[in-house]
């Protein structure tokens, strides 16, 4: 591989493509996600499954593929695979490990043990927060490879002076989750990955860290004119963050469209995302793909999970993001696709919100606070009871919106022993009764007769002027007045 730019991508940058696709074009994306499973030991041996560390410390004869060593399947990895399968609505099925044969120095046996034609998790699906359903084709267990560092030359294996291999990662259990090509935008692809990560973390199957490589995404991207059959796809590798994935997909789709529109043809190949140049670069061509000579791994038995075991695992699954959105939406009486609901679940504040609503807090007001005022450290320590009490005070007019926010902040900081009333009274947020509020407003009107006459005469300026009056009333009452109540009184006095 040389450093020259590929001729098939000249003139296109990720910046151009971010503007969106030309009319009549559609992109088709299918994602393959590799998740490292959160086991203590490796997929086929007792060596530790641990990120980083001194090179070649987490090894043993099986990890190194020493002659005579044999694999023994890690039951916990199977349990995690089943857990993921259940969370993705997959059929859990009898599975068989196969050998994928090819020579590579960071693969100790020069074959990878992977599930091939009989994966543990069959067809399933994942619902995105926006309501779109993405099909899951399968998810299968396989072992990770080691890591090579090529020293000298270009830093690639060819031309390097020598290469160093670290087998700490070799044999780490991976679950490859193969999504169907149901995604139509980079944004949806990113949402899919976030949602999947959320699920993996929620069920304890993986720590889902893209940066550390414990979750790795390959994106299959193709384009077509709307209504046409699928085009030839390219597989984009080396996307290490959601941002680079979005950029890579947008770039790649634009590249393919440009290629087709200028009379060229897309070649099915693997391409590498180059973060620095914002391009995908041609890798090995799929037409010359190696023949992996798959055959069933004779050193391992087929995996046939006991249905009772599967049910026991199912019983331990926590509520998943989609279920949590549905639960909160149900409690609040809004659609599950509502932004505030999605955000509440994303921030893990849905238990709090549901608790508050169940304790009698106004649902919409509760969601508004979760969405706008609780994106802070410690928000998860807020109790539903205190939160509900606060929202109820606000809705009942005992606190203004401004005061409510102040009390909320104090509550999160642990003030008032968790009692919003105590905080409100300590701050001197006395509720104004309507008599004294109206008195205060009358005083302000008397002091601003010109503005009041315009307010009464011309309904068109009332919006603007009510802001003025509210400001004056707030000033006079030191912020104790409720803005909404002020507006209502002004309208009423002006005669509707």
């Amino acid at each position, binding site marked *: 591989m040389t450093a020259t730019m590929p001729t098939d991508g000249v003139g296109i940058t990720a910046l151009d493509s971010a503007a969106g696709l030309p009319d009549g074009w559609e992109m088709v994306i299918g994602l393959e996600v590799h998740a490292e499973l959160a086991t203590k030991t490796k997929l086929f041996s007792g060596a530790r499954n641990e990120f980083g560390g001194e090179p070649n410390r987490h090894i043993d*004869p099986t990890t*190194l*593929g*020493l*002659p*005579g*060593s*044999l*694999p*023994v*399947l890690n039951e916990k990895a199977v349990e995690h695979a089943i857990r993921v399968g259940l969370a993705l609505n997959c059929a859990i099925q009898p599975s068989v490990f196969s*050998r994928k*044969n090819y*020579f590579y*120095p960071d693969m*100790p*046996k*020069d*074959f990878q043990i992977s599930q091939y034609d009989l994966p543990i998790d069959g067809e399933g699906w994942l619902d995105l927060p926006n309501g779109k359903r993405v099909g899951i084709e399968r998810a299968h267990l396989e072992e990770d490879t080691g890591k090579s560092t090529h020293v000298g030359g270009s830093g690639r*294996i*060819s031309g390097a002076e020598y*290469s160093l*291999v670290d087998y700490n990662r070799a044999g780490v259990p991976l679950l490859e989750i193969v999504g169907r090509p149901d995604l139509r935008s980079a944004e949806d692809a990113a949402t899919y990955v976030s949602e999947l990560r959320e699920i993996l973390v929620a069920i304890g199957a993986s720590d889902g860290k893209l940066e550390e490589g414990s979750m790795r995404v390959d994106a299959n991207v193709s384009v077509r004119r709307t209504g046409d059959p699928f085009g030839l796809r390219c597989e984009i590798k080396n996307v290490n963050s959601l941002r680079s994935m979005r950029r890579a997909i947008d770039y790649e789709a634009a590249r393919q469209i440009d290629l087709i529109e200028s009379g060229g043809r897309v070649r099915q190949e693997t391409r590498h995302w180059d973060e620095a140049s914002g391009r995908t670069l041609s890798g090995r061509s799929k037409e010359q793909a190696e*023949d992996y*000579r*798959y*055959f069933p791994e*004779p*050193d*391992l*038995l087929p995996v046939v999970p006991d249905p009772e075991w599967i049910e026991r695992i199912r019983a331990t699954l926590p509520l998943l993001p989609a279920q949590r959105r549905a639960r909160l939406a149900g409690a609040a009486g809004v659609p599950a696709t509502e932004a505030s609901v999605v955000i509440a679940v994303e921030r893990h504040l849905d238990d709090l919100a549901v608790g508050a609503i169940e304790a009698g807090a106004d649902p919409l007001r509760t969601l508004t606070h979760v969405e706008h005022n609780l994106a802070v450290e410690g928000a998860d320590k807020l109790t539903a009871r205190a939160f509900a009490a606060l929202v109820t005070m606000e809705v009942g007019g005992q606190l203004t919106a401004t005061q409510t926010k102040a009390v909320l902040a104090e509550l999160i900081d642990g003030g008032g022993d968790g009692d919003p009333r105590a905080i409100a009274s300590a701050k001197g947020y006395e509720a104004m009764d309507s008599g004294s509020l109206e008195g205060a407003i009358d005083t302000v009107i008397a002091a601003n007769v010109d503005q009041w006459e315009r307010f009464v005469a011309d309904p068109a300026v009332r919006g603007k002027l009510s802001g003025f009056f509210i400001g004056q009333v707030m000033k006079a009452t030191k912020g104790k007045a409720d803005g909404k109540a002020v507006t209502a009184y002004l309208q009423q006095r002006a005669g509707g």
Partner: protein
Amino acid sequence: MSGTAAALAADVRAGRRTARSVVEEHLAAIGAGDGEIHAFNLVTTDEALAQADAVDAKVARGEDPGPLAGVPVALKDNLCTRGVPTTCSSRILEGWRPPYDATVVQRLAAAGGIMVGKTNLDEFAMGSSTENSAFGPTRNPHDTSRVPGGSSGGSAAAVAAGFAPLALGSDTGGSIRQPAALCGVVGLKPTYGRVSRYGLVAFASSLDQIGPFAATVADAALLYDVIAGHDALDSTSIPEALAPTAPGVATGVDGLRVGIISEMLDGSLAPDPDVARQLRAAAAALTAAGAEVDEVSVPAAIYGLSAYYLIAPAEASSNLARFDGVRYGLRVDAPTTGEMQRRSRTAGFGPEVKRRIMLGTYALSAGYYDAYYGKAQRVRTLIMRDFDAAYERFDLLLSPTSPTTAFAVGAKSDDPLTMYLNDVYTIPSNLAGHPAISVPFGTGDDGLPVGVQLLGPNLSEATMLRAAAVLEEAAK
């Protein structure tokens, strides 16, 4: 030499002899005779004496030194021994010392057995004459112009020459039984999964099985009982515990139903006439001892050889990929990693190994998989089905072990297909996963040993050893 393994162990356990004296005696025999035989790739003198002293110390302390106390055991050089070179008789493993012991090696040591050395084999156990060794052929102790059989020829010859009363070999298509027959010793291939393969350098994983060589059936049972049993490090290991076989070895075959496999007597796979004659004599001996003997057809068995030469090379092509010069063994430097791997493998593997890697790679290729590997696996199923049918009527089956007695060194080494035919009677048991034993029974027209083979269903080792003991007695 000085008696059976059972007798030696009894003497050492009772303090009548020291393990050191037993081991020294055998090391002396090796020193005197192995220059001609070349049974050993390596004689582990220091380790053996240290192990012997440890056994003697146990006896002195009044501790149980184990059922094999002080008994010298020769290990096929494809069994991993911690810190001791393990070569598979291949240049590719040059300089490699395993950092761990095979499970069978651990069990031997725990039973008081003494490793006296690593024995020669056909490179990576691929062959039937021990001529495919990078370190030169092993000779048959009965006639040094003849091969000992293979691939465990070194282990068979070591026992036949009296270098060790016991040896371990591995059997993928007959590699224990055929050399046992040609060297006139007992060789048992246990049920697949009965003996842990952990630490056995793999040839064909779904067929490989470790088993004992001994001069007597009782000794073979003794060693089998030590090495058999579940091992969590081998996923294909059978979990069931079984009673030891040695105590029942002499209990006879009265009422046992034995079927002679007709295809292997006078059918399409008939052996040499002298071998066939001994087989009939063996059948008569079993009848005389009270067994009911009849002929039985196992029709699919004739396809065993063809299926084997697809399945075994296919698995081997994958198992041997790891010998790439990157982590251990031979490395021939080159400008690129790929070229280094190519040169290392070209220099490190012998011609038979290369032939099988190519055969296996082809059999697994896209577009050929179903026609070759897939079909061979279906043949395997048919063979199992035919055996199962035979075992509805019979407790054991009887056949020759090898079509001929030991042949001359060099006689078949230029003709792989003729060489492959040596294993025609032994291969079906590996394909079925069933146990089988070869026991010496008389000699051929050339005066060389003939072996007969007893086959049985899974986990029938105890029955098989009883019948083998009857044949052993009758052949005296």
